[in-house]
């Protein structure tokens, strides 16, 4: 067994392209992923053009800001270009005389200007309508003399009443950078493990088939050696990542994360062996791998957050190991145990068993080592 593994390692070490893919690309992409500073914060960018400039009109801006939106004033001549250039999601236009009309019991209109098709503005409209409807009711209850009194009465009513709170479910903070880096790692690990197990196909291409035929090696031994070779490079990857996150780009990682990355790599080693057994041509293998790895990584949320995708695509994402691995990574960052929340672990174990079973099935279909080569 060991001579086979040693031979495989020597072959890989002598080929710069595979070596780069197996050892350096995972570290490079993970590092680039860590540089990503994006956040998952969603804020509507709202500009307000207030021609009324009264207490009531100003309270509308405060209400919008309280909801978490970014609110700023805008000059009328800038409105169109700001919307067309995407600098603002919506512009609120408050007409002169708004407060006076409101206090008289009329129903003055606020205009919400936006681009056609900007659906998220529907939430904004509902929020403003409900706020102004509440002020309308308060005006009827309290009969205030001025806008300032009305706004003051609303603050008073809110002080002792029901309030809105946001609470975290778990204590751990999820780093978007680490999530993105891990997603990139899942992508590149898939690719590199499929390349590592492609050594089975390379034997044929390099005309070393006869040597394998003459050697006293069983087919399971041969495949186990290939599996262990890929696992050794996977371990090396994990070790380099440990060095990177501990000494170079300091990020809070846990043993569970390394275990997850390792477990994920093992899943793809099994799939790689299956693929190498069923695909006969190196060219077909080389064409399938980028298609498979890229599409699965995109679907599984390795490149962008899943909420960006429509509902059915999010459901479709569940057929990829990437989806469960990314979810498990988030759970680990939240400080939860994968053994307590078993779904992700079970799903990943299911993929592992499936790929292992496919490999065994493919191997049984072939009668000998010579056949599968």
């Amino acid at each position, binding site marked *: 067994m060991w001579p086979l593994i040693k031979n495989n390692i020597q072959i890989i070490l002598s080929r710069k*392209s595979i070596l780069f893919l197996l050892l350096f690309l995972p570290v490079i992409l993970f590092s680039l992923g860590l540089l990503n500073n994006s956040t998952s914060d969603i804020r509507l960018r709202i500009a307000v053009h207030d021609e009324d400039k009264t207490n009531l009109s100003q309270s509308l801006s405060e209400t919008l800001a309280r909801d978490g939106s970014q609110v700023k004033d805008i000059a009328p001549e800038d409105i169109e270009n700001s919307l067309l250039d995407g600098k603002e999601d919506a512009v609120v236009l408050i007409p002169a005389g708004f407060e006076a009309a409101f206090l008289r019991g009329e129903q003055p209109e606020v205009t919400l200007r936006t681009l056609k098709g900007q659906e998220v503005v529907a939430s904004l409209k509902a929020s403003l309508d409900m706020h102004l409807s509440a002020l309308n009711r308060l005006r009827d209850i309290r009969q205030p003399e001025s806008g300032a009194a009305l706004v003051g009465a609303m603050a008073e009513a809110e002080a002792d009443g029901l309030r809105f709170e*946001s*609470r975290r479910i778990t204590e751990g903070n999820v780093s978007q950078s680490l999530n993105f880096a891990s997603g990139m790692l899942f992508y590149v690990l898939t690719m590199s493990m499929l390349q590592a197990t492609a050594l089975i196909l390379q034997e044929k291409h390099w005309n070393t088939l006869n040597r394998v035929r003459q050697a006293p090696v069983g087919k399971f031994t041969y495949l186990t050696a290939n599996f262990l070779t890929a696992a050794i490079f996977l371990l090396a990857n994990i070790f380099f990542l440990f060095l990177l996150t501990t000494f170079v780009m300091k990020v809070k990682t846990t043993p569970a994360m390394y275990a997850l990355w390792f477990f994920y790599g093992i899943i793809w080693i099994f799939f790689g062996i299956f693929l190498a057994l069923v695909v006969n041509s190196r060219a077909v293998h080389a064409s399938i791998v980028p298609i498979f790895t890229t599409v699965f990584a995109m679907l599984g949320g390795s490149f962008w957050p899943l909420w960006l995708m429509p509902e059915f695509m999010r459901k479709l994402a569940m057929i990829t190991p990437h989806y469960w691995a990314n979810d498990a990574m988030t759970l680990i960052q939240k400080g939860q145990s994968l053994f307590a929340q078993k779904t992700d672990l079970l799903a990943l174990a299911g993929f592992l068993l499936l790929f292992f079973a496919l490999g065994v099935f493919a191997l049984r279909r072939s009668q000998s080592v010579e056949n599968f080569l």
Partner: protein
Amino acid sequence: MRSLQFLKKEGLHSLAAPETVLLMLLFPLLITWVLGTAFSGISARTIDLPEARMPFVSDGGMAAQLYQGNSGHSGITFEPVSREEADSGLMDGSLKQYVELTDKALILHSDDPQGMEAMMVRMYSNAFIQQANLTGLALKEGRLDLAAPQFFEYTRIEGMDGRAEPSSFGYYGVTMLTMILMYGSLQMLSMLSQEKAARTSLRLKASPYAMGKVFLVKTLASCFILMVQAAIIVLFNHFVYGIEYRNIGLVLMMVVPLAVFVTSLGVLSYQVFRTENAASVFLNILTIALVFLGGGYMMVSLDDSTFAALTQFSPIGWVNQGLFQYIYRGSSAPILWAGAKLLGLGLVMYLLAFWLFKKEEGSDRVAAD
């Protein structure tokens, strides 16, 4: 005549190669579908309202019913669950966030309080709380006639036409086309190396057909096949995905300089790196970097300054921006300028590769022998 026969041979080789169909055709079509569908809710300017479903824990009282009942305006559907169901969902990971109504507060339990659904809940809940508090105030003031929540429409949405922008399919219909054209450099590489791999290089050398012509015909064949592949992708995108290209014939003409550029890049890489593997690694990395810088993977605005700065460094970005400007703004100057630059660069690289080839013609080290 011999050149035509050689061209035919190269064409047949390419048709028989699995990467011609799998990587150069199936891959871009599949990726366009995945990316186009994944980002169908997002254009460069607008974000669709997601179908927000939020588990809701309450005592089922009047306030809870009002909270659920009025949420339709905000696009949120609250789904009542018991406390036990919520706890169990949190334990098994099937429940990521929920809203709880108690005597004192409306509580959003979430680890993603800045996400889209959380924002929608926050906006609606703040407005609802005002109404709920006023009900308490009305009862306290003895105004039973004003105890029920009211809802009037004060806000009018005024939608304005945006500039013509690509949809997600429109965007990736262009960027995946240029991405796959970029992979044409690898196809060129494979064409050059196949004679060595198939051990027909000696036969070619011994034939009366000049090696210089072999070099020329191979590059011509690669360019031609690449354009055929581009035409298939564009036609499929147009008729199956409904992607508009303004004028398909002109768009195909506009990407010819890119095909020349990538073919020259493939030839030069092979001559410089000497082996297919080394050149392949270099071209793969370069392709990913140029496509990324050119906005091939992520959908970005046509007017975004950061993106505009990045695309200056990528020939793919020049072509992408030029095609967008032509298709959606009707301006052909950017794509013509990009084409001129690419043809210039392509010609320089091709001449350099040919000089390297001629320099060592006949030796075993020459890459394309």
